[in-house]
């Protein structure tokens, strides 16, 4: 494999990591707010915060990793995305900041305020929507190159059915993924009150999940015909697999059998859809301006980055494993018997 493919594979994987962990985190914030408003706080709060407290900061690093990495491997992306995304990414940053800090103020501070929980819960649903603009404009058609530089066509973006379907896809995925995970976490904690509530949420979101995926596909056909054709012609089987994983997961959650395996199915469902989408998009990062074969950083730097990446992983994987062992796989901790 050449450097650009190693690079994009690594980055895509970290983005996937953020997608899963971030979705759990964002959705959990929304559930805490929901529980507080409907007076079910006692049932939900403990089990959610037992998971969130130790891992929220690590979740954030996946995002940082992705955007630093993409600028490092493909410096051209900094120019094109940077020049055009000032407003949408700034909105996402404002929300991310409000969310992160008020989460900390609310959790570690002395007193709890409904306004803080609300800021925290609602911003979580809006962040993926704001970030999704990046994916949308990467399909091309929203950027023009002028003598002054590159510019974003706002009107086209706001009126595009494709853009909106991606926004809704993000919001629904957040609720879907996070309820899938928290159901399993609550089950492990033997917290059946929380388990029941969250499982219901999962079942509610499954159908919209399926519908919005199809809708996104159809609108992609309108927007970027060639991408759609590659996706359905060459990689249809990956997307087919994704639907199979979805059906298995739904059945397992519905009949309450082997829900740990069901969670893995949910992750596989997203993994296949996400990698399928990425594969069918190649070689473009930003259609038609940034092509990974042309935009990659010079060879010496690419080599250095790959070396650092491998060394970094040797450091990270054991540490991440330790973190998971202490807070996700440790039965006593999950049940709240161990601080």
């Amino acid at each position: 494999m050449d450097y650009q493919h190693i690079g994009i594979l690594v980055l895509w994987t970290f983005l996937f990591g953020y997608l899963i962990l971030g979705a759990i985190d964002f959705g959990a914030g929304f559930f805490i707010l929901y529980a507080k408003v409907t007076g079910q706080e006692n049932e939900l709060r403990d089990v959610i915060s037992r998971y969130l407290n130790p891992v929220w900061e690590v979740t954030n690093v996946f995002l940082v990793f992705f955007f630093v990495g993409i600028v490092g491997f493909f410096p051209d992306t900094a120019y094109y995305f940077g020049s055009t995304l000032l407003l949408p990414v700034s909105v996402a940053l404002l929300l991310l900041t409000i969310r992160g800090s008020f989460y900390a103020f609310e959790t570690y501070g002395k007193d709890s305020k409904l306004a803080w929980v609300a800021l925290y819960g609602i911003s979580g649903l809006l962040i993926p929507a704001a970030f999704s603009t990046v994916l949308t404009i990467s399909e091309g058609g929203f950027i023009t190159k002028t003598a002054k530089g590159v510019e974003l066509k706002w009107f086209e973006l706001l009126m595009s059915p494709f853009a909106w379907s991606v926004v809704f896809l993000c919001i629904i995925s957040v609720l879907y993924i996070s309820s899938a995970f928290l159901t399993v976490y609550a089950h492990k904690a033997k917290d059946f009150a929380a388990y029941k509530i969250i499982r219901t949420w999962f079942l509610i979101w499954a159908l919209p999940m399926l519908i919005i995926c199809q809708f996104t596909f159809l609108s992609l056909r309108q927007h970027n015909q060639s991408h759609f054709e590659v996706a359905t012609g060459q990689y249809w089987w990956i997307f087919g697999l994704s639907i199979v994983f979805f059906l298995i997961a739904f059945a397992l959650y519905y009949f309450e059998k082997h829900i740990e395996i069901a969670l893995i199915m949910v992750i596989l469902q997203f993994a296949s859809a996400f990698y399928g989408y990425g594969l069918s998009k190649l070689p473009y990062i930003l259609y038609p301006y940034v092509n990974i074969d042309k935009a990659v950083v010079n060879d010496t730097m690419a080599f250095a980055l790959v070396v650092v990446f491998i060394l970094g992983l040797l450091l990270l994987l054991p540490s991440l494993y330790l973190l998971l062992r202490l807070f996700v796989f440790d039965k006593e901790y999950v049940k709240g018997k161990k601080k």
Partner: protein
Amino acid sequence: MDGIVMSRLLTAMTLGFHIIFATIGVGMPLMIMIAEGLGIKYNDAKYTAMARRFAKTFTITVAVGVVTGTIIGLQLSLLWPSFMQLGGQVIALPLFMETFAFFFEAIFLSIYLYTWDRFKNKWTHWALNIPIIIGSTMSALFITSVNSFMNTPEGFKVKNGVLVDIDPIQAMLNASFFVRSFHVVTTGGMTIAFCIASVAAVKLLRNKFPEDKGYHQQALKMAMIVGLVFSLLTILAGDLSAKFLHNAQPEKLAAMEWHFESESKADLVLFGVLDEKTQEVKGAIKIPGMLSFLADNSFDTKVKGLNEIPKDEQPPLIIHYFFDLMVFFGMFSFAVSVLYVIMHKVKRQVSTSSLMLYAIALCGPLCMLAIEFGWFLAEMGRQPWLLRGYLKVAEGATHADGVSLVLVAFGVLYLILGFSCCYVLIRMYKDKPAQLDVEQYAKGGTE
């Protein structure tokens, strides 16, 4: 205001806000480690309580540090896209390594904060501090490397506007890297030690919970000793910086010192007011020959003057004030810590007299200001360059619409965030005597 000025303002605002929390991130883990270690070694619950309270405070500041760090990470590409496209070819390595260091720190900090009572041997938990400190220091080093590259770029050649023959390692370990990172790390340790001392001093002066007196005195002593050690290192780092500037960035040194004509036996100018037209300095204290001595350990060294630098490449002269204030605040804190340590040995009651405590209370905030001024000085001192010698600031800024809107939005955000952060931190300790914590941990109890 045009886009360039606003992009500069927004970057300055974000960094100015982030640097407070970044400094805490560099200094605080060490203080926690020292307190926890002393607590285990002397089996003294006061230190244990101290470590726990520091750690609790730290979680709040880490949260703000992480989010503001994320902001600046993305703003680099949003506000300076052309620079990142060009520089990305060369600085990707330290940026990438910084995220690894940050990742490493984040994981172990999470583990540290939630495993106080998990391990039988207390030293096991204490040892978790080591990866945290490695992570936070490394992360400071790598990010400083990116900044020093912008000051002293090397490790590449330019051919037709494209960077070629790139040597990532040389770019990372560029000329100013060692001096700057040493300065960043030592001032981080110094500032946080004095901030902790300030809190202890204020608590002793207020004396709201008389039973806490012993606790705060112990914290004060620990922080002042650490502060003294780090201020000595800082002085060394500062001296190395002056020598470095003399050799590598003479225009910055000259602007910093209002040094216009190249000459040997150059004077060091302290304070004063400048008339920019006549280059006349009023009301300053001048130490003859001192600038030459600082630049090269010899009074005869010829120091390059500002008039030798082309007009459009001169840094703004305002940086002199930042330099003076930075040095003055640093020296003040150093002097206070020396006095405290001597008095503590010779005449203990003087070391906690209210006059002394007032002086100590000033040290923390002044050091934090010195950090801000030091960065103002460093960053404005390389104007008008974005990448010194290669790319001017005006060529790197974005052309996107809406920079003014974003500027206002982030300004409001930092105000709210700064205010809420202070509110939360003050509320955490306002009504709860430290003694309660101490007694709890003495019994081996948890929260």
